[in-house]
């Protein structure tokens, strides 16, 4: 049994839909031995071949000698820093392929402040490392490398065998828009993103690379086709800039009539998206669940999902998002049930029972034969003889003569009046006092009676407070069911210690307990007292626990949770002891942060 093996299980479960990773050659340049061990363990476990370099010079030497698919370079390395290594390798390679270069750093600002600090690397990974992230990023980058290599071979191949499609793409790519020269980093449609096709840049962007600004739509495109943006992680969070002017409110920015003066508006939109994206929890950024993506999108745009009338849609409305209205409504309704969204009534439509279209033609029609060929006839009542019938029966030129008694009607109100009217169908002759109302489906030609047609309500959707919380805090916010232990959340220090504890358990049967502390009142306290105050109280709390447990235990601070590793006790015994420790530790706090814990024993890691 090993902790890392069980980690694998967890990480595989997360990488849903990805095919099993191929064995890659990876270089890890890292001066901390703990991180070295862990990365090596982790990547080996995933089937990759790992070489380790402890400083910049070793790394450079390895890169020159061996061909790697991916290199993880720590920014602050002894002798040569990671950026220097990357710069040298790139300049030496020239036109030749270079491994995908990933920077790891706790000093992201320092790296980015260097000239060409960001661009030299294919991906930046902030420290502390999320071990789930590392494997994913390495494998994704390796895939891009393989794809690029393939593309190079295709280019090298004789011209005539190139498929037609490539030509079309090339020509569309050639038509550059002035937007592409504004100094932003845009993906383009077509070009980078197309039906079932992503360029290397687009794949890079789908990994959540913060250097991309948006997606330029250069040719007219149907809303259904834009779903390829939604099928990729992270891409859906980029603002859509419509250069065709045909997407309307579906796009985030209409660039079709933009003048040079207004480019600051574009700038504002892009910056707003960037800011909000930075606040979105990675659970949502990389979610493959359509509903969760919708929450992420709403959080990033910071706008409700508003329907607008749209005759071109079968649903007669479209939302201000590049998704089919039916999909939006389905996902949003499920989110309403989960309390993440709330809806507000917009309009009520009648639905075609056969094809689900809302494009219905409303008609007054005959109740018997459904013809709309109706004519209204007023009828006259001749008081004297009680004849009552349609006016045309009375008409004799410009005179009104009673068809029953041949008496001429001369005085309205004295001889006769008009008590009502009937609607006569010219198709079948049926008459009624009122016409029936019916619908004809414009899409499939099905007829529906007005009173039996079912109705569908269309809503606007708003993020609830909980929805916003979910976007910011990810799955950890959602109920106890999702409070299960995830290795992705564990700090590296803890993983290493856990591994050692597991080894001890295997060899000497010495039990251990991992305590996972979470704070139920975090959001309330943050809302009332501010994040700083909460952080201080939490620090104090963790310090109290550390003091109470003494040297025999390891107490580690995590991102949203804190952990304690107790040696020599099983979870059932540890629970009771830790309960007391928690109560004492919470005693001296200024506010109730709602600390609770879960205890996991060796059996839980089996």
């Amino acid at each position, binding site marked *: 049994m090993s902790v890392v093996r069980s980690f694998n299980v967890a990480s595989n479960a997360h990488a849903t839909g990805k095919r099993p990773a191929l064995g890659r050659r990876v270089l890890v340049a890292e001066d901390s031995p703990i991180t070295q061990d862990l990365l090596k363990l982790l990547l080996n476990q995933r089937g990759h071949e790992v070489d380790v370099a402890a400083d910049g010079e070793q790394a450079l030497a390895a890169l020159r000698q061996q061909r790697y698919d991916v290199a993880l370079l720590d920014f602050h390395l002894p002798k040569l820093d990671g950026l220097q290594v990357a710069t040298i390798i790139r300049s030496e390679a020239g036109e030749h392929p270079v491994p995908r270069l990933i920077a790891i750093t706790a000093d992201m600002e320092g790296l980015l402040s260097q000239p060409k600090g960001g661009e030299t690397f294919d991906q930046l990974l902030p420290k502390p490392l999320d071990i789930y992230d590392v494997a994913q990023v390495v494998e994704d980058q390796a895939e891009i490398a393989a794809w690029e290599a393939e593309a190079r071979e295709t280019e090298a191949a004789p011209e005539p065998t190139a498929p037609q499609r490539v030509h079309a793409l090339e020509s569309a790519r050639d038509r550059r828009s002035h937007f592409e020269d504004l100094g932003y980093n845009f993906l383009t449609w077509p070009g980078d993103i197309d039906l079932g096709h992503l360029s290397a840049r687009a794949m890079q962007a789908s990994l959540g690379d913060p250097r991309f600004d948006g997606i330029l739509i250069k040719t007219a495109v149907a809303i259904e086709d834009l779903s390829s943006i939604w099928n990729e992680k992270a891409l859906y969070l980029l603002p859509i800039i419509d250069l065709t002017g045909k997407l309307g409110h579906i796009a985030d920015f209409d660039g079709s009539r933009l003048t040079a003066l207004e480019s600051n508006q574009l700038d504002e939109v892009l910056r707003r998206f960037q800011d909000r994206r930075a606040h979105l929890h990675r659970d949502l950024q990389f979610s493959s669940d359509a509903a969760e993506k919708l929450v992420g999108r709403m959080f990033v745009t910071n706008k409700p999902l508003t329907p607008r009338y749209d005759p071109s849609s079968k649903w007669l409305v479209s939302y201000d998002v590049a998704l089919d209205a039916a999909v939006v409504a389905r996902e949003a309704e499920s989110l309403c049930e989960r309390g993440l969204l709330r809806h507000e009534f917009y309009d009520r439509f009648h639905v075609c029972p056969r094809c689900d279209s809302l494009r219905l033609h409303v008609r007054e029609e005959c*109740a018997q034969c459904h013809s709309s060929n109706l004519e209204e006839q007023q*009828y006259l*009542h001749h*008081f*004297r*003889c*009680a*004849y*009552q*019938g*349609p006016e045309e029966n009375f008409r004799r030129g410009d005179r009104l003569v009673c068809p*029953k*008694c041949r008496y001429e009607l001369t005085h309205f*109100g*004295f*001889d006769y*009046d008009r*008590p*009502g009217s*009937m609607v006569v169908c010219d198709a079948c002759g*049926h*008459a*009624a*006092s*009122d016409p*029936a109302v019916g619908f004809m489906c414009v899409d499939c030609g099905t007829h529906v009676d007005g*009173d039996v047609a079912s109705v569908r309500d269309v809503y606007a959707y708003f993020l609830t407070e909980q929805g916003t919380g979910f976007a910011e805090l990810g799955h950890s916010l959602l109920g106890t069911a999702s409070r299960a232990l995830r290795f992705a959340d564990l700090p590296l220090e803890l993983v290493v210690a856990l591994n050692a504890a597991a080894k001890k358990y295997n060899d000497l049967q010495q039990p251990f307990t991992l305590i996972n502390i979470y704070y139920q009142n975090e959001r309330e306290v943050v809302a009332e007292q501010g994040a700083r105050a909460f952080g201080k109280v939490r620090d104090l709390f963790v310090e109290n626990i550390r003091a109470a447990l003494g040297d025999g235990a390891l107490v580690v601070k995590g991102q949203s949770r804190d952990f304690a590793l107790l040696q020599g006790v099983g979870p059932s015994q540890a629970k009771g002891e830790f309960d007391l420790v928690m109560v004492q530790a919470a005693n001296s706090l200024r506010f109730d942060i709602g600390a609770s814990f879960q205890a996991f024993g060796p059996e839980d890691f089996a």
Partner: protein
Amino acid sequence: MWESASDGLTYLLSQSGESLFRLFWFVIVFEFPRYTLSFLSVAAIAGYTAPGSRRSSPLGTVTAVIAGHNEEDSIERCVLSLHEQSCPPDEIIVVSDGSTDRMPQKLRELQDRGLIKEGHCTQVRSGKSAAVNLALARATGDFVVNVDCDCTFDRHALKNIIAPLADPRVGAVSGNILVRNARDNLITAFQGIEYLITISQGKQAADLTDQVSCVSGAFGAFRRKAWEGVGGLDAGGGEDLDVTLSLRKAGWKTVFAPNALCYTDVPDTLAALVRQRFRWERDAVRLRYRKHRDMLDPFSPRFSWQEVLHEFDFLIFNIGAAIIFPIYILWLFTTYGDLALIILMGAQAGMMVLDSATFALSALVTPRVNALRLAPYVPGYSLFNGFVMRFVRLGAYLEEWILEASYGDTYVPQKVHRVRR
């Protein structure tokens, strides 16, 4: 008192045949002939079967026509009972005559449920005649059955009312109307007995002698061709009597279908009953002696002995009896003083016997009705009919004769009163 009563009884018992006639001439002239007629008719009915009543093949298509004013509560029940028929109508057309309740919405709902073919709604009230005419103009059936909203029907009523129309000479058939609420109180019980005697049995007798002069407005079937020929219904009250007389004048036979049973609610207070009867009797007088006067004129081309019979029947036994009865009582008291009361009681006793006998006969020819329940009320009915209703009738006749009150009836819209014939 007892003494004088026993004296009176001794007196009555000691009379000879001739002197009895002198005492009871009113009963003998105005009441007895009717009872004899009944006896004769029932004797005949015993060996009589209605022609074509067992015929099952359809004679033609049937349209049911319903006209109502503010009938939101009863229209659905009425339509549903038509659909319950062993032989339901081919189409139902309903006219809401200027209803101010929810009847128009009710019609729309019935039409949507496919229970009626057409529902028409006038915004202003035109009167029952005009409403029925509107429906008649939309009818397509060979036969048109006109029913009232507050009626419900026996399962075979429609089949049985259509059956006589197999005879091509027949223009209209009257249904047999019974009282649904007979057990509500004394007033409705009396009317239950009255309907049984005058309609179930009386019309059956009239039918034998081709004297059916009124096809009930509540339940009547018409040959559409014949009905349209006389222009549907004419304006004004008593349109059922009116149209029957018109059809007879046009040469059509009008008959009675005793087994076409229909139930209706009758007025349950004396005041309502009196109002209803004032209206009926007024309309009868107006129609028979004003509008259809020519039927009694031997020099008119429309004159026929057939019609004279029922006209005289009405003249003598309804109008005559009503006018002479007070005179008879006055005469009794002036001639016999205290003895008059005894004589009157004796006359009433005789009447009760005759009424009971008629009732029994009526029950016999209308086997589907449980007449036994009404039997205890027969003596009361006899008194009520002999004294109260006769004066009601007299009042109605006098009022119509002197004031022409039927022209102010609220049953017909004022705008129609003003101009109709």
